């Protein structure tokens, strides 16, 4: 077991109790903040090398959003750590009943390559805030960022309690043989199954942030220009390699016609006449992903874009029109700068289309008519939902971020990350006196005792006569 020693070492640190005091957690979190500040340039460079991530995007997702999470956590940690007192019943009035937030112990965070800093750092913030030790396993596919994390994170965090493990599938498989007290995984549903199966052997609880095809419904009544901008922004951010990107569009044939020039306009506004020359448009992370995406271009017909450059792993911001449900682009999560449009007759058809498919991580609906937006929301199911925009619901730290069904289980961001990495322990601290109050519960059992017990333990429906 190549990682047994490392896990034991972290477990020993955990048992020593050093990660529990608030001061320690704050110190480690502040160190993470310094990591983001000191290594900002290196992070921008590494992510550019990995997938041509534009500096603007990298700053926004890898630095700014992470610092927000850090600050929300630091501002509220004291409050989150406090015992939550709960309502008591009649016999417990003199007792103390509360929920204690206990750390789990040694947790494992497995991050993917598309937002390689954000997707390990934001979970890590919660793991540290909750008092755990952690092993971080960044993705080997974003290898420059992986190297940066492996070489520099240790300079900021306590290496007795936090470690980085690098490697690919074989290494991750060996790592998962060890017992962890919590596993946080972001990646594909198929690997999610493998992680959960491995976790089951040790009865390890987990959070899986997976993916799927995020539908984007555009109704006939909408401001086409703004819709096009917001959809294009969400689709082409990070060259489409975003788990919550609008994966495909559903609209009527008339709307498809209206949208096309608007989308073309938005793309030109964003990236200029030749997006390959724009510093604001990313590249595909690997040759394998590039080939996979290029093969999808045969779906429907290329209405915008479609150009590719293998040497640069460049795929132009592309919109495919008249895509059929049976086309390759509709069989898998696209995860690239390609937006298929599937034509439907009306909103009901769109909703049926969505509901016939696995539940997505995100769902989008655009309409000037709020009733339509609400209809789509109410008649579908998804991890999260954003009306009249894309991606933005995950930037509010007060909203939980997570999937449902194939798109995942569990949630995080803000306090939800802290809660994810805490065991909520029900605690009751009773008085040793007042023993007579307990008599009705002891044998020998009698109807009279039962009557007493019932009246003290019962929850009465409001509207009935009660002594309370």
């Amino acid at each position: 077991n190549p990682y047994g020693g490392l896990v034991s070492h972290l477990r020993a640190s955990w048992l020593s109790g050093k990660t529990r005091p608030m001061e320690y957690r704050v110190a480690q979190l502040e160190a993470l903040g310094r990591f983001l500040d000191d290594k900002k340039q290196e992070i921008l460079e590494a992510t550019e090398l990995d997938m041509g991530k534009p500096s603007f995007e990298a700053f926004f997702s890898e630095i700014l959003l992470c610092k927000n999470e850090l600050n929300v956590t630091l501002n509220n940690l004291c409050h989150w750590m406090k015992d939550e007192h709960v309502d008591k019943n009649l016999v417990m009035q003199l007792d103390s009943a509360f929920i204690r937030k206990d750390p789990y112990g040694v947790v494992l965070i497995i991050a993917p390559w598309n937002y390689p800093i954000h997707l390990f750092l934001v979970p890590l913030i919660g793991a540290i805030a909750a008092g755990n030790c952690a092993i971080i396993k960044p993705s080997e596919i974003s290898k420059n960022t992986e190297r940066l994390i492996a070489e520099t994170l240790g300079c900021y965090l306590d290496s007795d309690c936090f470690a980085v493990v690098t490697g690919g599938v074989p290494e991750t498989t060996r790592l998962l043989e060890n017992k962890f007290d919590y596993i946080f995984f972001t990646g594909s549903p198929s690997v999610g199954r493998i992680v959960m199966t491995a976790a089951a052997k040790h009865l390890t609880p987990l959070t899986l942030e997976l993916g799927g095809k995020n539908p984007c419904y555009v109704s006939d009544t909408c401001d086409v220009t703004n819709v096009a901008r917001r959809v294009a922004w969400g689709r082409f951010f990070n060259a489409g390699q975003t788990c919550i990107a609008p994966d495909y569009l559903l609209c009527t044939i008339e709307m498809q016609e209206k949208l096309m020039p608007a989308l073309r306009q938005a793309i030109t506004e964003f990236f200029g006449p030749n997006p390959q020359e724009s510093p604001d448009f990313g590249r595909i992370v690997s040759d394998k992903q590039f080939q996979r995406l290029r093969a999808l271009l045969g779906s429907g017909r290329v209405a915008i874009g479609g150009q590719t450059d293998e040497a640069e792993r460049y795929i132009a911001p592309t919109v495919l029109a008249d895509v059929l449900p049976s086309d390759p682009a509709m069989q898998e999560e696209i995860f690239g700068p390609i937006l298929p449009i599937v034509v439907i007759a009306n909103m009901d058809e769109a909703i049926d289309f969505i509901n016939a498919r696995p539940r997505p991580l995100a769902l989008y609906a655009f309409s000037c008519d709020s009733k339509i937006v609400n209809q789509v929301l109410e008649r579908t199911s998804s991890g999260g939902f954003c009306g009249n925009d894309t991606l933005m619901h995950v930037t509010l730290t007060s909203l939980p971020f997570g999937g449902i069904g194939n798109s995942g289980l569990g949630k995080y961001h803000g306090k939800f990350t802290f809660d994810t990495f805490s065991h909520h322990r029900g605690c009751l601290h009773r008085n040793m006196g007042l023993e007579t109050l307990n008599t009705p519960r002891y044998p020998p059992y009698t109807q009279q005792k039962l009557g007493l017990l019932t009246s003290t333990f019962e929850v009465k429906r409001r509207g009935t006569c009660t002594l309370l």
Partner: protein
Amino acid sequence: MERMQQIVGRARAAFKSGRSRPLEFRIQQLKALERMVQEKEKEILAALKADLNKCGPNAYSHEILGVLRELDLAMEKLPSWAAPQPVKKNLLTMRDEAYIGYEPLGVVLVIGAWNYPFVLVMQPLIGAIAAGNAVVVKPSEVSENTARLVAELLPQYLDKELYPVVTGGVPETTELLTQRFDHVLYTGNSTVGRTVMAAAAKHLTPVTLELGGKSPCYIDKDCDLAVACRRITWGKYMNCGQTCIAPDYILCDPSIQSKVVENIKATLKEFYGEDVKSSPDYERIINQRHFRRVKSLLEGQKIAHGGETDEASCFIAPTILTDVSPESKVMEEEIFGPVLPIVTVRSVEEAIEFINSREKPLALYVFSNNKQLIRRVIAETSSGGMTANDVLMHSVLPDLPFGGVGHSGMGAYHGKHSFETFSHRRACLIKDLRWEAVNKLRYPPGSLEMLHL
């Protein structure tokens, strides 16, 4: 295979029809459950007596009262539990609607256990119905009378397609677990817990596992021993020790060990009289297999009290073992029987170390007059839940989450926690299609200066 597929398929079609979602429907079903419990009280008590030799008042207070209370709470609170929760917005979302919506998961599976066979299917069922789901109920076949009764009664009171009951043993449960569910709540042991989670992993189904373990009970020298021992006796021997949160073993200083034994003996006499076997309030071991298992734990032990057994009636007397070695068999597995080992430790540090060197238990108990000591035990150990200066009682407060950690389980339920377990919390952000100027800040071509605004 087909039968399971059909049952789950029907439940799924029924869920898709949308009828389990309106609050009125959910409350109507909960009300029907309440009627069922009130009208069929006699039958339920009879089944519990047949399965576990649980007597009337005991069965009523442990299984029926708890269910009625949970039903009342759910019906009372459902509108507020199910209401969308607005969240704090930031500058960019000031004009928008941002909230968390509570939605049903779909078709959930509830697998019950045999020790509290009625309440352990009913309580999860109540939460699942309240959350708007379809629910497949699989009571434990080991408590066969209650299983049969649940299978008979539920279809008489509830929507038959939405809330089917599946009976059977291991083969049937294995088959059931190959189907896709949107959540599985399992109560039972860790071994089967692993199997349930592995089966759920194939479908990426979230699980709540209510397992078990050895719940330690530390008695400090500084405490009212008579009161402590009475409370411990009550919790330990209730249901013949077959309670997942029963104090499994005692840790105490050697100097008080014999006093502890004396006090427990005295309490046992108070509770069950001179001849325990003839007390109507003392239960039996569920079956011969468990009888033999528990009996074998007595081998080689110093029996300070009890030890009498009768295989024919699955009777094991309330038993206390003293000076038990941590390496002995009785200290290896969860006892789940009326056998109470006492392991001596010389300090609270030793007790904490002892507890931490073992798997995290479902419950933890500490008795002391010293508040600091209690706080220390809580802070330096981990367990599903805990009660200080009493046993079992933390499971009675619906606002406290009831669940395990580590080997004792994952997830929690009871009260509002059941509702949340069986709901999907969906993040919703509804923006306006106007006010595009604000969005321009984030669109390319981007300059880093703009971001610092």
